[in-house]
């Protein structure tokens, strides 16, 4: 049960997925403890996004089991809804709702899913906007914000549901270099506050700073995993070494 600290909050056992006949995920095993920060990296097309999206069932897995906070993801819609209440997700392309203001973006789910009264939702939203450093943007529309500001709103929007787990799929890849830091700072602060995080990213500075474990994906499999020290200082697999040498050149 989730009240027991030893029990992992995410358990994936032998997860497989196919797109048509294309075998995207080939037996992923992973356990994430409460409060852990996990970084997933690997070459393009290796299935990182697909994997992280199976955790809140934006993609269905076809074999194996995924258990999130004690709830197994099956075809049962109630389980899926329960898991989505516990997980927040931040996308590469922000995916803010352009027809709603920043404040409305953040309060939407608390009001409609958690059934909070509007003033409570707005109070929490403003606190979160303070936390990500842009309270003054509340009345604006997403289209009037910079990329970095939009991504920080997206993080606040996910946090407003008070999730136990946060999923990040390349949250800084669509940002100009000068905006990457402002988003990473928010994420580092979140990691240090004890949030359980699964982060697909190639920001190795972030991984070094806060990751507890790192997983290297290639061709739908976990090639290697370990602490940042192990991965950076002493990678075992040749494919990991090659990939790290390529991305660390920049």
């Amino acid at each position: 049960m989730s009240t027991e600290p030893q029990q992992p909050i995410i358990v994936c056992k032998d997860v497989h997925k196919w797109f048509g006949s294309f075998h995207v995920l080939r037996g992923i095993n992973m356990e994430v403890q409460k409060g852990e920060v996990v970084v997933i990296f690997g070459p393009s097309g290796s299935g990182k996004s697909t994997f992280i999206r199976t955790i809140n069932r934006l993609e269905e897995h076809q074999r194996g089991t995924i258990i999130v906070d004690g709830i197994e993801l099956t075809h049962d819609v109630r389980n899926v809804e329960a898991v989505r209440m516990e997980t927040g997700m931040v996308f590469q392309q922000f995916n803010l709702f352009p027809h709603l203001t920043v404040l409305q973006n953040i309060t939407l789910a608390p009001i409609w899913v958690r059934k909070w009264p509007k003033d409570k939702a707005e109070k929490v939203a403003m606190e979160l906007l303070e936390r990500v450093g842009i309270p003054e943007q509340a009345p604006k529309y997403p289209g009037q914000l910079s990329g970095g500001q939009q991504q920080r709103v997206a993080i606040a929007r996910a946090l407003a549901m008070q999730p136990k787990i946060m999923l990040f799929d390349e949250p800084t890849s669509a940002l100009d270099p000068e905006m990457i830091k402002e988003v990473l700072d928010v994420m580092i602060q979140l990691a240090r506050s004890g949030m359980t995080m699964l982060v697909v990213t190639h920001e190795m500075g972030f991984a070094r700073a806060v990751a507890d474990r790192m997983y290297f994906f290639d061709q739908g499999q976990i090639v290697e995993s370990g602490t940042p020290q192990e991965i950076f200082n002493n990678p075992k697999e040749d494919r990991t070494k090659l990939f790290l040498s390529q991305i660390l050149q920049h």
Partner: protein
Amino acid sequence: MNTTSDSVTPPAPPRMLEWIQKNLFNGWLNSALTLIALVFLYFVVVSSARWAFFTADWRPVTTAPLLFLVGQYPREQLWRPGLSMLLSTFMIGISWGIWPRYLKAFSIFLVVLLAGMAIVPLETPTITLGIRAAFLAASLLIYAGYLLGRSKFVNARLAVMLWTVIAVLISLVLLPGIPKSSALPSVPTTAWGGLLITLLLAIGGILLSFPIGVLLALGRRSSLPVVKVFSILFIEVIRGVPLVTILFMFSVILALFLPAESRIDRILRALMGMVVFSAAYTAENVRGGLQAIPPGQVEAAKALGLNGFQTTTLIVLPQALRLVIPAIVGQFISLFKDTTLVVIVGINDLLGVGNSVLKLSPEFFRLQMEVYLFIAAIFWVFSYFMSYASLQLEKSLGVGER
């Protein structure tokens, strides 16, 4: 160019002259074209005005204005369409106060028009003092409604509720009446006609076909095979058939198959035909909007825990609909103009009245031009204000878009 920095001179006239010189008389070719166009315009305007005021014979319109307004609606029951007009104009006024951006131009036009109709120097016995008073009252009610709508007593939600109640009351109680009652004796719809019918069909058609069209568009993308197949069949069959045929089918075939006592009223049948037709086209327009919404929007909504219904109504539809406003308003305008087709199933709408007025007297028979121009003008005015409102809506929704 003469650019004077003297700030004392009034800036407007020189600017206009400058504009004229720069745009109309720059170079001899442009000047010649401008002159030719001006001469042409002069002749068109002058000869049209001369025709309208001196040659044209407007008696078909002026002898039977009530026919154009309400058809054969019993004259002793005229207070009922009259009250309907007063209620509607009051609501138009309230709406003007709440949504001035879209309704200001139309409302002011109506105020002036109705006031004009109250005092127009026409020597027709049918336009009694009472009717003139009603027009004047309607004109004043628009303004009274405006003042109320601007105040804090009425908000958009209340206005929509009032509109709904009043529309239902007018179309289901006030105009048709209650069978066997003495205060509101029933008036068969065969007696209804003119602008009354045209507006009822247009407004009813628009209000009913819009939600049905949206549902069909959503149904077409549904994951339930039955819903999906039904929606596709409905849309494609209706879109493959001309409106005239649909109107015939609804007025003849529906009447044949249903037993006489459960007969649906013929105006209702025509309305159903219009609704079905317009819904299929609305559905296709809305589908275009739905397709333009990036999948990331739905994913973000799902990831936040919103269910399918919430995702559709809160995220997808609001974005999709604002993309297709111009197309849908265009669809409504053509629906409005297409109401004239009900003439062929024997309904006496504005055009039907026009046709029958021409037969009122042998003298009128050659005055088709006048009658049809008059009807065309009415349709043009309504269509114009509809597209004007749509343009304003597009502009205001564009704010803050990405």
